[in-house]
């Protein structure tokens, strides 16, 4: 379990987080959403120990990330947004990296490379951007760490690759693995993520699973714009209205509409979800 308590963090004069507290429970695929520049990547770096909080605590299964102890490091893997590869093949890369991870599975790597349709024989620099991303995803998943952090994993992937990405994440992540996917392209991870965390500048606006969200927020698909809705958006054939679930009705979450509703009604929705 990841526990963040009263976290303060700033880059020189730019405050990113101010006294935020947050928890990530084991075995879930979290969607970490937020506008550009709110600190999604920074939060992942803090959880990985690549940055150190100025105030507050972060603990991952009781370990402090910023100490970068081997026991901690072998339980996490961070796949950054920017593809950085070595002058080698993905196979050699994963063999070199996998030696440090106790649950690393080379067979799984081969399976994932096939599923993601990446050529095993080519070097990284011979692969396209999307292929590199998929190869690195296969590497990351084959290490079978307890925590997998993916920063904008669908950026640069074509439509079929995005579908493959969702498929392998859903299929190969076991109940013990916690995945945090940071993205601002919510449609790419729809039907994959649950719970959702929405970050704002120095605040956490939402951290809830789907059942809790639908228990309190109702997504109404209808022909007209409702006055009491938090947010309304025109869809082909009508409107989606995001509103308070006063009648305890069931509905399907539209993550993009939810995100926009939260961003437009920060305090109201934050209070509603507490």
């Amino acid at each position, binding site marked *: 379990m990841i526990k963040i308590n009263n976290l303060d963090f700033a880059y020189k004069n730019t405050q990113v987080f101010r006294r935020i507290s947050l928890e990530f429970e084991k075995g879930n695929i979290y969607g970490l959403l937020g506008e550009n520049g709110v600190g999604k990547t920074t939060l992942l770096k803090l959880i990985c120990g690549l940055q150190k909080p100025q105030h507050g605590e972060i603990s991952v299964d009781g370990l402090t990330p910023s100490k970068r*102890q*081997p026991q901690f490091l072998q339980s996490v893997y961070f796949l950054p947004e920017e593809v950085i590869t070595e002058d080698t093949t993905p196979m050699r890369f994963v063999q070199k990296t996998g*030696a440090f991870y106790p649950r690393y599975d080379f067979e799984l790597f081969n399976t994932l490379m096939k599923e993601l349709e990446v050529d095993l024989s080519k070097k990284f620099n011979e692969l396209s951007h999307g292929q590199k991303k998929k190869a690195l995803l296969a590497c990351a998943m084959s290490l079978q760490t307890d925590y997998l952090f993916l920063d904008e994993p669908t950026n640069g992937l074509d439509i079929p690759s995005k579908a493959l990405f969702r498929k392998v994440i859903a299929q190969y992540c076991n109940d013990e693995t916690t995945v945090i996917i940071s993205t601002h392209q919510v449609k790419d991870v729809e039907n994959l993520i649950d719970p959702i965390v929405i970050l704002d500048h120095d605040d956490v606006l939402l951290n809830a699973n789907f059942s809790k969200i639908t228990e309190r927020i109702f997504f109404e698909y209808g022909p007209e714009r409702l006055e009491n809705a938090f947010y309304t958006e025109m869809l082909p054939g009508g409107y989606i209205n995001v509103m308070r679930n006063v009648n305890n009705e069931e509905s399907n979450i539209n993550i993009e509409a939810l995100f926009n509703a939260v961003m437009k009604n920060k305090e109201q929705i934050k209070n509603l979800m507490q």
Partner: protein
Amino acid sequence: MNNTLNINRLGKVIKRDGAGFAQNLGLALIILWAIPVIIWLFGNMTPFNGKMDPFSRLGIIGTLRNILIIIAPARLYKYCNDSRQGMGYAMMPASSLEKFISMVFYCIIVAPIVYVVGALAVDSVLALIGGSYEGFAVPAYLDKYAQLKHALENNMFLSEEDYSSVSSSIFPSFFITSNILSTIMLSSIFMFGNMVFKKHKTGKMIGILILLSIISMIAFINYVSNHETIFQSMNEDNATDVIKRMLHITAQASIILQAVVSVVMLWGTYHKIKTQKY
């Protein structure tokens, strides 16, 4: 789990770092090995038939070894403090101490040894061929060393050029210690520079060293001009003793300085590995 030092894990780090050794340093090694060959070829082509003695060649090998020591950290661990490309290094499941030991192993031990062994092999081959290279370097050096030691032990007169090598003969242990320490110091300075600077790592560190050299030279000239009495007391009878005493003091001071600088730089490198943010 031992989170500080585990031999098995250290072995994995050394293996991982070693995988890039030839790729990252191979070209530099080949170029530096080729320089004595170019000098030999050049010597053979000149019409003067000048011969290069083993000591000059060893001096060249020593200088080239130092060049390798200077460039090795930035070649082998270029990206380890890069905010994007260094994340993989930081996230490698090994302790900071293990990463540090591996870095020391390759920069201070492996790189200079590989170069010197290769350079001596090249030198031996060239000496065997003959031409502008005269005599084998290592046997000639050992012979000269024994001669100097004998001369000093028997209070024999030393030629002027021998004064430059005298310190190594007076204190054999000093010579070995100083040579090892100077290698460690030079390497540790550039290892630290590699961790501190993100761009133009070697150039910036050389700039700092030049600046420090100028400052220390000014300080030394100041010191000597304020202690002229030492030289005024020197005459033909006691010159060797005075010089011996001065060399002794200089030798001890340089060993202490080299040790202190090495420890500080190595600690700084370890600290940077441990606390580097990405």
